């Protein structure tokens, strides 16, 4: 469904990603792991066209999206939840959800149904519909960030550290939601620093180091590889 072929990308004069290739098949959940500053977020931003790839090719559902502007990439069917949610803080929960919906869905009559899908996953958002997004707790903000990626009726969800900085109970709620989404047939590309979250959701993982993919395997294999976990990801063996 999504393929990166030798993608190079960066900010200004700095190149952050070197020759990154990866594949996410339909219905798969794939994690992108790595320590801080290794290029995980940049990879997602390159996919979304926010940091356009300088070299290589990005293909989504048989369309070459490498040179497309972000809004066209999003409209092809990618739901994006950026790092730290990045909600529109002075707008309400409903307005935040409304933005991707009106941009991506031709049929406005599907609004109640799309909302219901989000609220079923995150009942707490239903209680906070008219609250300003900026007034939500950290966990609720991440939930709304994921909700925003869902209402467009997309098939691929691209999620950037949806559990970052959250309390363990909230992390559990979000991990449960991500597993539900996967079981509903969504394709997921998940960036995580928290390896346990990634293991709980994804069946395959790529490890990024200094902007290059240095390891690719199933999460079951990766889980056993204590040496690699310790060395590359800083997880205590």
């Amino acid at each position, binding site marked *: 469904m999504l393929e990166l072929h030798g993608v190079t990308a960066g900010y200004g004069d700095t190149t952050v990603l070197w020759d990154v290739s990866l594949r996410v098949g339909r219905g798969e959940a794939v994690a992108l792991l790595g320590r801080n500053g290794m290029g995980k977020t940049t990879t997602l931003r390159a996919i*979304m*066209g*926010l940091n356009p790839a300088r070299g290589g090719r990005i293909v989504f559902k048989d369309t070459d999206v490498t040179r497309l*502007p*972000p*809004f066209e*990439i*999003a*409209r092809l069917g990618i739901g*994006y939840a*950026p790092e730290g949610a*990045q909600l*529109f*803080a*002075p*707008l309400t929960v409903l*307005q935040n959800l*409304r*933005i*991707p919906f*009106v*941009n*991506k869905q031709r049929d406005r009559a599907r609004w109640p149904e799309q909302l219901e899908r989000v609220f079923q996953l995150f009942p707490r958002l239903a209680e906070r519909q008219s609250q300003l997004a900026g007034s939500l707790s950290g966990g609720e903000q991440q939930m709304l960030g994921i909700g*925003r990626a869902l209402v*467009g009726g997309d098939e691929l969800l691209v999620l950037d550290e949806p559990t970052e900085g959250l309390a363990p109970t909230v992390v559990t709620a979000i991990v449960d939601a991500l597993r539900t989404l996967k079981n509903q047939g969504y394709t997921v590309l998940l960036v995580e620093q928290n390896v346990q979250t990634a293991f709980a959701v994804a069946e395959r993982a790529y490890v990024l180091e200094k902007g290059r993919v240095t390891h690719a395997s199933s999460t079951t294999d990766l889980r056993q590889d204590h040496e690699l976990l310790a060395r590359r990801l800083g997880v205590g063996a």
Partner: protein
Amino acid sequence: MTAVLQVLNGLTIGAIYILLASELTIVFGLQGIVNIAHGVFYMLGAYLAITLYPRIGFALTIVAVFVVTALLGLGLEVTGVRPLVRWRRPGTQVLVLTLGVAIIASELTKLAWGPVPQLSDVPAGLTGVVSLGPILYPKYWLFVMAFTAIFMAALAVAFHRTTLGILVQSIALNSEISQAMGTNAPRINSMVFALGSGVAGIAGVLAGPILSVYPTMCFDLLIILFVVVILGGLGSLLGIVVSGILIGLVNAFGVAYLTGTAGNILAFAVMIAVLVFRPLGLFGRAGILK
């Protein structure tokens, strides 16, 4: 009693400032650019009104001027501003581009309508005075105030209640993320620029019978508009209303009780005094339209 008269004068001038400044502040909020050519549409509106009004009447003049200036604004945005923004060259280069457009337009206006200041006619039906207690006040000036009040109320509703308004807000808040949510920001930015140019044209039609119409009016007013925008706080519509009225009043009282140029001097003094205490202006908050 003359004080009350000056308050009314200040409100009328302030109304024109508000119409014009609201667009400047919205475009800045969306694209981070300063559009020096904004005054051109205002000037063009005033001149077109002088030519059109005797032939097609006031209401049609307003419509025609809106259409013409909005289309010209669209042309400027799509051919000039948008490429600069896309090449990540906004800021100074847009400023220089729009300054150039304004200089050319001002010279062309001189060629087309002559260098002599003119005053356009008060529309039939809005001539004469209304008695407000002991004061007799021109009906047309009251009309300008009412027009602006209704327009700003409609704008506020559009911003907070319509889908387009919410998309516009999301672009102002975080253009990048909004586009990653599927918002066609380039198209919406063009639309807003065009609508704003159209409103500037209407402001020119309205201002014609009140302020004089001359080929450098697009620059003279612009300076005061920047004062209004900065004093109100960039990106704040409420700020525009408050500072527009404030600067209108300062101007009216300055002109009435001091000298003709005192209005501008006082306006700057007020702006500087406010910025010392509130560097973001009266209602300024980074990256928000409200």
